[in-house]
């Protein structure tokens, strides 16, 4: 099987001293980032991109570092969910429901062990899914022309608000903002400056790394300043031995496997991502197994299900990002930014032109996953202690690392000022409940989207009907329309269910 041969080559790329070291550092940092409330996978990866970029890592090495952080964050989120009843990141919300009750019953160690193993199962199976599904998707994507790509980008934006979105208008407004920002700078096809107001700094356009770090990381600092002293973390962290008996693990295995499948599918589909993956995994497991009404009171299966689900979704979300170049979630959008900043265009050609990057990355995911389970079982006590770093020391560090990273790219004060502007914009948009991910996606994909539209219409001599010339593009447009309209119909119900689940857990989530 040539997929397995490629994967073998990937391992040859990944197993070097440097790459293994980077994977280890990434796993460690990722777990910490996931565990710390206020630093999620997307802003954690975001502040590290400019750093890996200015440190001059090559493409494979940078990707290995950052995807290890991504997988690590999915492991780390559960720690504060279980011990403090505060989700370390958005996807770990569901883990609080049964994890915290277990911790209060003195079974924190057991809950951490089960969730760690569930995370491993979810990631491991999902990475295999990525190995086999991504090349198939690539075969489809090779049939795409410019018109199909334009439709695909539209589909990505239309579904980005997600199935749980209540206000599609705001998601679309956010996308328009991002696309509008992407237009700033010299037009790639005719060479005329656009929206640059005669400022030379703007001729190259807005650097998307600056936009991402400002929107995600600095806005978080502002949120903490706004809410300082309102939800201080108190709590003694006593864990006990982080082990689970075989019988409990066997008891949880069906839950883990079912949740892995659900999570993976949720991850691959556009507009879902890890948060919805863990929610759907928990909800369906509750429907299937909650005969004695033990869910929500410390059922180990209620810990296993969402953790397997969110880790599997994280792996699944890499499929469209790598194969099509179209990310479906915030963190994969950030990973796309990594690729673009390294001058690598993801999509089907990535697999033929840079097989070493793709397969090295996938091999690194397997390695990282084993490192993470090895790290997370015995060292969980260490990570738990990191949780107690108070925000008055953490957030200044986050802000300063953001500044260092952006300054490191060009040594430009102008970039820093633009980043602050994006930080303020991010705060205002978050207050108004406008999602940030479509803004990022717009900034990232705007130029490619325009280029494909113009290419398609150049081929057809300006005939707009060319956008709908093939069954494939018609199908994509139909999906885009359905994906945009469906949440308006069912979104309110789903959103209120998630909100209710969060309220039951008594957590504060932005």
């Amino acid at each position, binding site marked *: 099987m040539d997929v397995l041969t490629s994967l073998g080559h990937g391992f040859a790329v990944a197993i070097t001293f440097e790459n293994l070291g980077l994977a280890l550092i990434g796993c460690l940092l990722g777990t910490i980032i996931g565990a710390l409330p206020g630093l999620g996978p997307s802003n954690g990866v975001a502040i590290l991109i400019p750093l890996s970029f200015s440190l001059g890592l090559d493409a494979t090495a940078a990707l290995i570092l950052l995807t290890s952080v991504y997988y690590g964050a999915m492991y780390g989120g559960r720690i504060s969910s279980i011990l403090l009843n505060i989700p370390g990141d958005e996807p770990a919300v569901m883990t609080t429901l049964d994890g915290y009750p277990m911790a209060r019953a003195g079974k924190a160690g057991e809950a951490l062990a089960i969730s760690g193993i569930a995370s491993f199962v979810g990631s491991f199976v999902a990475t295999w899914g990525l190995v086999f599904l991504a090349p198939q998707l690539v075969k489809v994507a090779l049939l795409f022309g410019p018109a199909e790509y334009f439709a695909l980008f539209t589909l990505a934006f239309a579904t980005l608000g997600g199935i749980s979105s209540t206000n599609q208008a705001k998601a679309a407004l956010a996308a328009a903002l991002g696309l509008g920002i992407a237009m700033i700078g010299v037009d790639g096809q*005719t060479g*005329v400056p656009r929206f640059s107001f005669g400022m030379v700094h703007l001729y190259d356009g807005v650097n998307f790394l600056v936009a991402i770090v400002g929107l995600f990381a600095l806005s978080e600092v502002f949120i903490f*300043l706004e809410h*300082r002293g309102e939800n201080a973390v108190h709590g003694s962290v006593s864990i006990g031995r982080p082990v689970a008996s075989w019988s409990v693990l066997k008891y949880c295995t069906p839950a883990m496997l079912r949740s892995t499948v659900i999570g993976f599918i949720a991850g691959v589909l556009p507009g879902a991502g890890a948060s919805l993956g863990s929610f759907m995994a928990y909800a369906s497991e509750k429907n299937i197994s909650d005969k004695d009404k033990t869910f929500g009171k410390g059922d180990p299966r209620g810990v296993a299900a969402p953790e397997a689900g969110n880790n599997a979704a994280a792996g699944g979300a890499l499929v469209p990002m790598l194969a099509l170049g179209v990310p479906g979630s915030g963190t994969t959008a950030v990973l796309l930014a990594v690729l673009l900043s390294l001058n690598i265009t993801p999509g089907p050609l990535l697999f033929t032109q840079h097989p070493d990057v793709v397969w090295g990355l996938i091999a690194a995911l397997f390695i990282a996953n084993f490192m993470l389970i090895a790290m997370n079982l015995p060292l969980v006590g260490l990570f738990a202690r990191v949780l107690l770093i108070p925000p008055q020391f953490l957030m200044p560090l986050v*802000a300063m690392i953001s500044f260092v990273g952006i300054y*490191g790219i060009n040594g430009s004060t102008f970039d820093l000022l633009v980043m602050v502007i994006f930080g303020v914009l991010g705060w205002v948009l978050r207050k108004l409940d406008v999602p940030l991910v479509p803004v990022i996606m717009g900034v990232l994909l705007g130029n490619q989207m325009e280029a494909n539209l113009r290419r398609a219409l150049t081929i057809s001599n300006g005939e707009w009907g060319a956008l709908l010339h093939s069954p494939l593009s018609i199908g994509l447009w139909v999906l885009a329309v359905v994906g945009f309209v469906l949440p308006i119909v069912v979104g309110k119900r789903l959103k209120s269910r998630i909100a209710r689940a969060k309220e039951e857990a008594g957590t504060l989530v932005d």
Partner: protein
Amino acid sequence: MGDRALGSVGLGLAAAYVWQASRIQESFISDPIGPKGFPFIIGGLLALTSLAVLLRPDPPPHWPRPARLLELVAAVAVMVAYALFLPDAGFVIATAIASAYFSWRLGAPAMQAALAGVAIAGGIYLVFHLALGLNLAKGPLGF
């Protein structure tokens, strides 16, 4: 102050955007759409979505009290000042002052905040500059 303001600002922005797009200079050879076409579509989308938000607003968010809002404005001012003075003051001094300020405003006692500022600046300098070789702003003192 909420979605109605957002919608109005969005509409204004859309109008300004389309106006600016119409003033883009076209070169004599161009593709069928040219450099203006896609910006016009985006401007239209922005106008439509702003109108939708304006007509069907969500309940307004909880804005911070004026004192807290002033706090945020001060934080932005510190960040801007940091960006402007960084090349002259050098990385360590600028970062120590800025992070001490943030630490203090996030609730640390003054002495602890000052220590945190020095520790954060020193730590980043040690890890990113000395260990990893990243270029940081050099001040008159060389760090």
